[in-house]
């Protein structure tokens, strides 16, 4: 039986993808080389890893306000993760996801970065009555 984890809130579309997981934060300005599509902050646990097309499973939204624009800009060039799955969001991440028409779920009863292994195929459904991520 597949394992399912329910989120407090979600936005966007149902999709499947491969998870990229770390117990670390997320900020488009602080953490990414948005041209190359990789994590670029040396201290980030995913430094050097490509995020393009991956379901990012991370701890908390970090950093400043730029992500609210940057997700839209990244989406326009197609250099973008497939979805964001976070233990804790900040308003900026929600605002950016809303503008970019992107997919995100957040808020779990467990630490989601410990529940999903990197490389796992997952399904996300933010449109469900109780949004969820499921290990396939």
């Amino acid at each position, binding site marked *: 039986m597949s394992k399912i984890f329910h989120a*407090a*809130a979600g936005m966007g579309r149902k999709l499947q993808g491969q998870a990229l997981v770390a117990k670390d934060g997320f900020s488009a300005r602080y*953490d990414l080389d948005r041209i190359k599509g990789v994590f670029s902050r040396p201290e980030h646990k995913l430094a050097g890893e490509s995020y393009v097309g991956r379901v990012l499973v991370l701890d908390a939204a970090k950093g400043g306000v730029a*992500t609210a624009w940057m997700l839209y800009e990244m989406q326009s060039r197609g250099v973008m993760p497939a979805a964001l799955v976070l233990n804790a969001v900040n308003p900026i991440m*929600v605002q950016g996801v*809303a503008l970019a028409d992107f997919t995100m779920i957040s808020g779990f009863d467990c630490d989601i970065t410990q529940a999903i292994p990197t490389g796992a195929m997952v399904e996300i459904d933010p449109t469900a009555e109780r949004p969820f991520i499921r290990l396939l």
Partner: protein
Amino acid sequence: MASGLHPGKGRIAAVNYAALNFGMRLTDQEQAMRAGTFGPAVQWAIEHQIKVGTYLGAEDFVPVTQAHIMADTESLGVAGVEWLERWARLPDKQRRVRIPTITDPRGTDFASAHKLKHQPWMLDLERRAIAAFESLGILMTDTCINYQTIMAPVRGEHCAYGDTGVTIYGNSVCGARSNFEGGPSALSAGLTGRTPRYGYHLDERRQATLIVHTDFTPRELTDWGALGGIVGRLAGDYWQVPALVGVDRVPTSDEMKHFGAALASYGSVALFHMAGITPEAQRLDDVVASDRELRSHDVGEADIRAFQESYAKGIDTVDLVVFSAPQLSLVEMSEVAALLDGRRATIPLLAITSPQVKPDADRMGLTARIEAAGGTVLSGMCFYQSYAREMAEANGWKKLATNSAKLTNILGGYGYQPALLSMARCVEAACAGGKLA
């Protein structure tokens, strides 16, 4: 650094916005906005706000008196500028903001762009963004220190601030009420005159969630920034409200600015209290619910020194010195000028301020003193919001000294190796060919 972690409510469970996640109540006017009565820009804006408010558990809207938009073109990109231009082409009555709406720093200082090797395409994109904003009725203040230069908010005033440093200063030092409002949401607030009522617009969210005791009241701005960075890391996410206990004097506005900016940067924190100092925490009990057990931490001078030294590791020479993030107040400009008097910077030294401070700095001779010593004064931009990666590549900049903990936190991702030093040590380095003493 000692921690007394009380299990109680875990950080993850504490973010229980789902429990509040139902539809927002709309007034007749808000329903008319949603129906398109005021045109497509306002219609988009309120729809965007409803999406955000619903996700974050807002029950209704709250009127706001001012909005502040972060929208440098490195963040906007071509796609974001084109998006703004679509609204700017609407008829006049459908496109103008309805409350005072101002801007965060731009992506360049046009007068000095050549010194930074900013490219013509960057300047063109900036001009297009500025034209679009002006068409929307937005005041191009280009500053992240509007609380020092434009109009500080009043305790209890609901605002829509689009810069983390502005938000945390307004909330904490002034007692105003704002969440982080990214560019699209701050613009929405300008267009609708309101924002979803969640987070720091609510009394219950403004209570402390952790206590930080310190026996060391910083002296230098960079020490305040380091303290903010440490507390930010301890806090961990947006929904945490640290209360600092033990500060033994009232900090200056610049000290609060550096502390708050770093706290917001490292922790994504939007509100702090300082017992006996900030307006909502005249007594610690004012911000700590009696039935709530909070985690607590001790932070001392050794922690601050360790934090600073962690950034200087392996750096003996820097390529440039930057004073920015936040923009410098007139007092900071004066301090930089005094430190440079009679000396000569032999590597680039950038002192970045607001368009409101710059004319005063010119009039009082501060700009001339800094530039006579080899420094460069820039205004209306901020270093990290001004194509930092491209500047590094074009100028061969890699190692950088700054007294801003916020800047230190950001620039690693742009390929820089930052050293976090006092203002005096930064100037020493600039006058010693970049060599760190």
